[in-house]
């Protein structure tokens, strides 16, 4: 197919070969791992900085304001300036806090998002971890970050963070179920969980089109549930700033606070990437069966661009949610999950299984 001209596998393979030919295998492995680590570190930081900027611009757009526009052209260096400011702030904690857990909590949230990001396919051959349980791996790794939130709130020795952490704990674990089940709907259709295979299976149509009704329902459920799972508005009870100051990270200052903030944005990026990969074809260009000319033109756009366009689209939807809807109350939040999303999800999976059984998908 046309899109294989942008395949990264030969390039990465030749780098690998070259490294192993110049040095001993042990060193080559170390150098390779260092390079991968550095690449992901830079990528992680850049995406985080960009998302914070994007959020403020989108917010400004919706509220009919300009948004950041002072530092650099269109304010593009605003978040970098913010980052340097936060880095230069003194770290203060509360007295009588559980110092050990207080210090461990930022590590847990950052490491969880980092381990999840490694499994996202950015382009053909451009993914670090390709398990046969891909989707389950991401779900399981990101389910750990709730512990970081709970520990942060508890160890601060302050009441508001504790309340925020408890709320967000109950919220994250509840909505995790809906995230898992809505992805499961697509696994039934795809018959695989491996990310590379999922993307390849969408060569002749994205899953949201292939699975029609249940796939569209699953996509809507996924976007709602993942917005809630990442603690973003209108589900941001954990840090309801009008009642709880800033939720579980109230007592964190400087760069430690910045890491919680960064992890939140990266979690949003990860859920948007999963949505783009599982429902919207990931890096796979838009192909319509029998429209050969159209498909050839689409293949000329590099897969990386397709991937980022789709992810940006989902992120934009999630950001629109935040600035459009008022915040929910905790009982409404839990009712929405347990009495609406979960039963709908279960029925939807059966519906999808029936469609797969009868061969009604494309």
């Amino acid at each position, binding site marked *: 197919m046309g899109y294989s001209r942008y395949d990264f596998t030969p390039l990465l393979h030749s780098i690998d070969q070259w490294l192993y030919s110049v040095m001993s295998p042990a060193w080559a492995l170390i150098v390779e*791992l260092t390079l*991968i*680590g550095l690449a992901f*570190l830079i990528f*992680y*930081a850049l995406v985080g900085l960009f998302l914070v900027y994007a959020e403020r611009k989108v917010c400004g757009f919706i509220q009919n304001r300009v948004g950041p526009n002072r530092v650099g052209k269109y304010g593009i260096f605003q978040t970098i300036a913010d980052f340097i400011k936060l*880095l*230069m*702030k*003194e*770290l203060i904690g*509360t*007295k009588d806090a559980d110092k050990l857990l207080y210090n461990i909590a930022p*590590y847990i949230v*950052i*490491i*969880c998002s*980092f*381990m999840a990001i490694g499994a996202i396919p950015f382009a053909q051959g451009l993914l*670090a*971890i390709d*398990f046969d349980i891909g989707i389950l791996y991401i779900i399981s790794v990101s389910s750990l970050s709730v512990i970081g939130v709970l520990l942060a709130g*508890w160890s*601060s*020795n*302050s*009441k*508001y963070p*504790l309340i925020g952490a*408890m709320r967000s*704990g*109950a919220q994250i*674990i509840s909505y995790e*179920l809906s995230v*898992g*089940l809505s992805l*499961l709907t697509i*696994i*039934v259709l795809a*018959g695989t*969980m491996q990310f590379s295979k999922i993307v390849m299976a969408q060569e002749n149509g994205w899953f949201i089109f292939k699975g029609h009704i249940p796939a569209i329902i699953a996509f809507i459920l996924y976007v709602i549930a993942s917005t809630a799972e990442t603690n973003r508005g209108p589900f941001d009870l954990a840090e309801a700033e009008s009642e709880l*100051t800033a939720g579980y990270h*109230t*007592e964190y200052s*400087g*760069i*430690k606070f*910045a*890491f919680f903030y960064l992890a939140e944005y990266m979690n949003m990026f990860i859920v948007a990437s999963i949505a783009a990969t599982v429902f919207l074809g990931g890096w796979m260009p838009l192909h319509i069966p029998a429209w050969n000319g159209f498909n050839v033109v689409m293949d000329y756009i590099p897969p990386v661009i397709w991937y980022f366009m789709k992810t940006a689209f989902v992120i934009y939807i999630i950001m629109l949610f935040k600035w459009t809807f008022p915040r929910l109350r905790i*009982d409404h939040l839990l*009712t929405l999950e*347990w*009495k609406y999303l*979960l039963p709908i999800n279960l029925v939807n*999976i*059966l519906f999808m*299984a*029936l469609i*797969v*059984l009868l061969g009604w998908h494309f």
Partner: protein
Amino acid sequence: MSAESLILFFIVGAFLVGVAVLFSSYVPPKSSNPQKFEPYECGIPTEGLTWLQFNVGYYMFSIIYLVFDVETIFLFPWAEVMKETGMRGFIEIVIFFFILGVGLLYAWKKGALKWE
């Protein structure tokens, strides 16, 4: 390769936080003031103990979550092979869902899904 890269991602994440925290705890200027280490809360001095007993509702939801989480885990291998097993897989999952639906209905009727 995969297990190594897991450890790699773990180390890189820890490295990112570690270096930044180390930098921040030595380079920025410092000042000491007993007021600084009070819990912030809402700006008024804090009253009483922080670590109080919490609502049973949170516990309730985490238990129901655990049951459904186990169920979801068992659905993953099923979803993987649903396409090939066809009718057999479908019938088995209908029975599985029916029994779990009874569980959800029970929790609903008992008011376990209600926040109080």
